[in-house]
């Protein structure tokens, strides 16, 4: 009843090509953006912004990156942590080598650096597939972290190997978004803007010819090659663009979320975390990247805080262990009831809504 496109006629190609062809979808998306940009900064506490929404945004970005590569182009990768570290360290080097560089440029260029590194480590994908490729991308994970640990140049010869974000302002203003002076709200809005723009770009990418080439390669690479899709360009472009997103996510992690970072923050567990996000959220879905990030980031924090907020006095170690148990059980539960991820669940819900209240 509420969700039905009856009466919405597509009278031009532009309307047919729209990202959200159904008016209700557009309203919902704009509503969400309004909440995220206006209501949340005004209403929510600093704690909520800094410890739930910031990591959610950062990891959503990384999940979009990996989803482009694994969900759309079908190239399994375990190098996400390495590419995120590349972005983080590139951002640090760029901003300390060129103190005058605008922070926006720092973020985008660090993504570009990560993209080049991604291309380099994507080369094996031309020869190997599936799990073997995942193992090959592990090389990126371990080599890159080793490099940042080993070579002092990347950390400006800091004794501990930790980098921390220098204070920088948004272009043409004096609003700090990194460093100790930056307010949480400013950081949040900056991160949100980055994620919103790049998610929109990703959504359009996968609807364009390049996204269709990725999906063709994913579904059957030999058939794709026969109809004229070049595997070299297609696979490497997937690695490049995916790594760009991961690199920006790494820079966001170091500069906007924790403010300082050591290579250990991007260890193999981070790569697995992002992989689990897209599996639980939904492979081959931009929305799924957000849902998966929300599930993996926010749920443990809520579980940790739940006993305290409910007024139960449980020792912290018990809470930590219970958190792992409940979280693990939920992962299994969702994988059983919906192996295609939370995004698929949403899709099914939409189908049901169209028929509601008269299901047949």
């Amino acid at each position, binding site marked *: 009843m509420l969700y039905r496109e009856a009466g919405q006629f597509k009278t031009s190609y532009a309307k047919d090509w729209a990202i959200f062809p159904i008016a209700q979808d557009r309203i919902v998306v704009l509503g969400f953006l309004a909440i995220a940009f206006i209501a949340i900064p005004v209403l929510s506490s600093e704690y*909520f912004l800094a410890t739930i929404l910031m990591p959610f945004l950062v990891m959503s970005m990384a999940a979009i990156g990996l989803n482009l590569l694994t969900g759309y182009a079908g190239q399994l990768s375990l190098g996400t942590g390495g590419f995120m570290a590349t972005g983080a360290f590139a951002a640090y080097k760029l901003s300390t080598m060129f103190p005058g560089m605008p922070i926006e440029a720092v973020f985008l260029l660090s993504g570009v650096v990560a993209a080049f590194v991604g291309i380099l480590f994507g080369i094996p994908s031309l020869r190997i597939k599936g799990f073997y490729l995942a193992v090959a991308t592990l090389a990126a994970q371990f080599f890159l972290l080793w490099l940042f640990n080993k070579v002092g140049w990347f950390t400006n010869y800091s004794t501990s190997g930790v980098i921390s974000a220098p204070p920088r302002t948004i272009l043409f203003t004096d609003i700090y978004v990194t460093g100790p002076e930056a307010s949480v709200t400013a950081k949040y809005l900056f991160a949100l803007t980055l994620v919103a723009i790049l998610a929109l770009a990703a959504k359009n990418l996968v609807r364009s010819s390049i996204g269709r080439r990725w999906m063709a390669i994913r579904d059957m690479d030999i058939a794709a090659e026969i109809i004229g899709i070049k595997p070299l360009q297609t696979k490497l472009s997937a690695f490049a663009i995916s790594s760009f997103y991961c690199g920006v996510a790494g820079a966001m992690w170091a500069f906007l979320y924790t403010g300082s970072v050591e290579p*250990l923050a991007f260890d193999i567990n981070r790569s697995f975390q992002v992989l689990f996000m897209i599996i639980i959220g939904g492979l081959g879905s931009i929305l799924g990247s957000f849902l998966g990030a929300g599930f993996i980031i926010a749920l443990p924090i809520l579980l940790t805080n739940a006993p305290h907020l409910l007024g139960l006095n449980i020792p912290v170690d018990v809470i930590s262990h219970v958190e792992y148990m409940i979280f693990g059980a939920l992962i299994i539960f969702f994988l059983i009831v*919906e192996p295609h991820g939370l995004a698929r669940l949403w899709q099914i819900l939409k189908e049901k809504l169209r028929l509601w209240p008269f299901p047949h």
Partner: protein
Amino acid sequence: MTFNMKISAAAIALAVGVSGTLLAEQAKAQDAGQYVPGTVYRSGPYAPGGIPWANGYADYFKLLNERDGGIGGVPIIYEECDTAYSNDKGVECYEKMKNQGPTGASVFQPLSTGITYALIDRVKADEIPMITSGLGRADASDGTVFPWVFTLPVTYWAGADAIVQYIDQQEEGSLDGKTIALVYHDSAYGKEPINTLEYLAEKHGFKLELFPVAHPGLEQKATWLKIGRQIRPDWTIMWGWGVMNSTAIKEAAAVGYPMDRFIGNWWAGSEVDVKAAGGVSKGYLSAQFHGAGEDFKVLDDVKKHLVEKDLNAGPDEEVGDILYNRGLISAVFTAEGIAKAQEKYGQKPLTGEQIRWGIENINLDEARLEELGLTGLLDPVKLSCADHEGGGSVIIQQWDGENWKPVSDWISPARDEYLRDMYEKSAADYAAEKGIEPRDCSKES
């Protein structure tokens, strides 16, 4: 709608509903008192070391509440949050606890060098002092650049210097031509002593060999084959934590490396480490900044007021263990900062800014240590506006198979000679990178 669909829809609805109500409910009103947050780790890969520390830290505040009714009549509200030694969880705990209690968090002690780094900017913005006792950034000892961070009683750099001083004593003043190996946890923590040791290698003419060990440190076969069979260093220093320590001791024994030439730093020298390695660890040395055992007056009080009433946080036999004592010492620093601040600002719950003044004016001399029942457990420490380390000392202890026994006097690190200059230079680099204007300590009261 299929059955599965219904279940999952219900699960999602429940999750969303519960989280909504949880988030809506803000922190409940707290009783009047001084709120002390405990960022501890009782879970995760480093929990075996984190738990005794957390128990010692918690017990001291409980002891103050039980024995003295708090500090200056103000009860301590102590609350824990589990960081699992993970930086992002540590940040989450910090953000959650910083505004709790009537006056906000008093002092943070993250017990993780990684979390320390993540919090340095935040404590500055939120004006909450952070104490990193025997961990964290060594150059934070320069209070002009790091007003909110305290490193008392010793830093890693000072610890490395003291260890080399001990080795120098054993070698009768000549390290020329000797080889010293450093086996370290390949993280921010483990890398801290390297530049000090490099400096000393040049000064004394010994050769320094570096052996990074990847987290968590279970795989050290290659490292120890090289140390034991190929290089055979005269001394080996270890900067390890958690399971890495006992693994290293076992591997060292396996290649026949002499234990009495193997010195761990204070995070690589607790009962947890040597007992896990078994009998082979007899003779192993470690550098500490506090005493071991339970023959101290403050621990008698812990037994009388907590253990006998069954109020202590952990198992009874843990009282007196190295890490328990360290947690207790760390709590003493927090409590002493609060007590000192009360002298100036009055006996009421104080803010982080007021407590920072208190910590900066800590003067734990012999008389005060005696009063607190800490004689023998800790060497005197005195802080100032510029000196956030306070001149603590290091003692070398040896594991005799049953207990830790001191084998040296209190060693005073060579701060005046070069360490202080290194702190200041490193802090100045940091200040330049971050655009910090160092404060003028001559204008502080």
